[in-house]
């Protein structure tokens, strides 16, 4: 990693984050992080039922946080867009960090919470549905 704080892939997601923003009529909204750590991540889902399958048609995020927090949020949206909810529910923070080619150890527990925000959004969708 040389003298860089983050690897190239993390930097790319931080500087050019995918799917930033809100979804107006989101049917699932979730949040993770806490102010003490300095990371707050919010995920918006647009889920559609097609042939009995719940598909993530659109996903957006808003994040207050460091480079790792933004990059993991961006990565999560890329990893689950177009996937079924059952598939998305399998996504873990560890898998997100791996997909980014790794994060500095100190960032692993504080800023790597984007999958939690996603899971929170899915829970919110399911609760609304039932």
């Amino acid at each position, binding site marked *: 990693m040389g003298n860089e704080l983050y690897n190239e892939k993390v930097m790319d997601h931080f500087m050019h984050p995918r799917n930033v923003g809100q979804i107006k009529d989101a049917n699932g909204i979730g949040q993770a992080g806490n*102010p003490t750590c*300095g990371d707050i991540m*919010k995920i918006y889902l647009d889920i559609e039922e097609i042939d009995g399958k719940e598909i993530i048609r659109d996903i957006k995020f808003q994040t*207050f946080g*460091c480079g790792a927090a933004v990059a993991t949020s961006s990565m999560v949206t890329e990893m689950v867009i177009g996937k079924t909810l059952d598939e998305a529910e399998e996504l873990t923070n560890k898998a997100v960090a791996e997909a980014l080619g790794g994060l500095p150890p100190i960032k692993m527990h504080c800023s790597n919470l984007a999958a939690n925000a996603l899971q929170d959004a899915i829970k919110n969708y399911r609760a609304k549905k039932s």
Partner: protein
Amino acid sequence: MKMIYLDHAATTPVDNKVLVEMEPYFIDKFGNPSSIYKIGREGKDILCECRHRAMSMLGAKKPAEIIFTSGATESNNLAIKGVAIYVEKVLKQKPHLIVSSIEHHSMLDAARYLQKYFGYELTLLPVDKEGRVDPQEIEKSIKDNTVFVSVMYGNNESGTLEPIAKIGEVIKEAKIKRSKGKNNLPLVFHSDIVQAFQYFDCSVDRLGVDMLSLTGHKFYGPKGVGLLYVRLGTPFLPQQQGGAQEKNRRAGTENTPYIVGLVKAMELAVAERQENEKYIAELSDYLVSRIEKEIPEVELIGSKDVMKRLPHVSTFLFKKVEGEAILINLDLANIAASSGSACTSGSLEASHVTKAMGYSDLDAHGMVRFSLGKLNKREDIDKLMEILPDIMVKLREMSPIK
């Protein structure tokens, strides 16, 4: 891309004039000052000369009042531990220590260490929203067994100056009261002048201090060298054993080239004091006015009165944005600044200084400090302002905080 360095409160580059004076003491005049032959004696001579020069710049009375150390961290540790442990072990009394809540970690953590492992009493002084200690609060906190009070001159995060001379008076009166009674305990007033020395007169009698901590690298001197001023008659126990150096108070072969560098840097700082203070205050004023004008939802923390600020430190609270995210964007443009954000400190905790000033953890994460130096130009600020507003817009668009 030329680097724009805006983090002088962290450290500064060594002035070439300093480096030139240090050089002979690495290879030609490398002798151990404790040795009897010629180059040893030369080392001893230059040390003696440096001690006199440092003494005069601090308005000290005797060369023995200057103890050269490895920097302000050591000086702060030596000061508080030296006095407190003396009181317990030699005077057989339980010491009470008073330390402001905005001190550098080298003072705060040493104080907490003494509290935790030695059972000493510790009072952490609160500060107001601008980060200032109230001298009356000190007066109220002094007890019969109070032996050490530490308040820094200028804070590296808030930029706020503390009323050191006023606190000095309060302590002097407490000492007089004490001497009239039967209380023989010392009452030592210590101040960390690391950020302030280069801009303000730090004569020990003007400040009314018994101890001062200083390091070289905040004003174009080398890292790894500093000093502790100890007023004659101030009792303390040395914390490092193994040689008679520094009159038995700090063992270890003297770091001659670095001490030469420290003292030269002190002299340059004193000689350039007024000029640098004026120049940097103007530059900071320009920075503050542009940021306040061009970026919404921003607050300069610390004292609003320029007369009560360190001229070089401006810390801004950028609402809804996280500090590290700002710093990385700046770093990509080769601009160096620092943040109160936990992410950048390695400790994952928000700054204790801004917390003491009443800011929330979330606020602390949105703080960025710009600290200017004598080599900065107006163009550096212009370059910063070419990109900073856009960085803010981009990061705020991304923020879930409304």
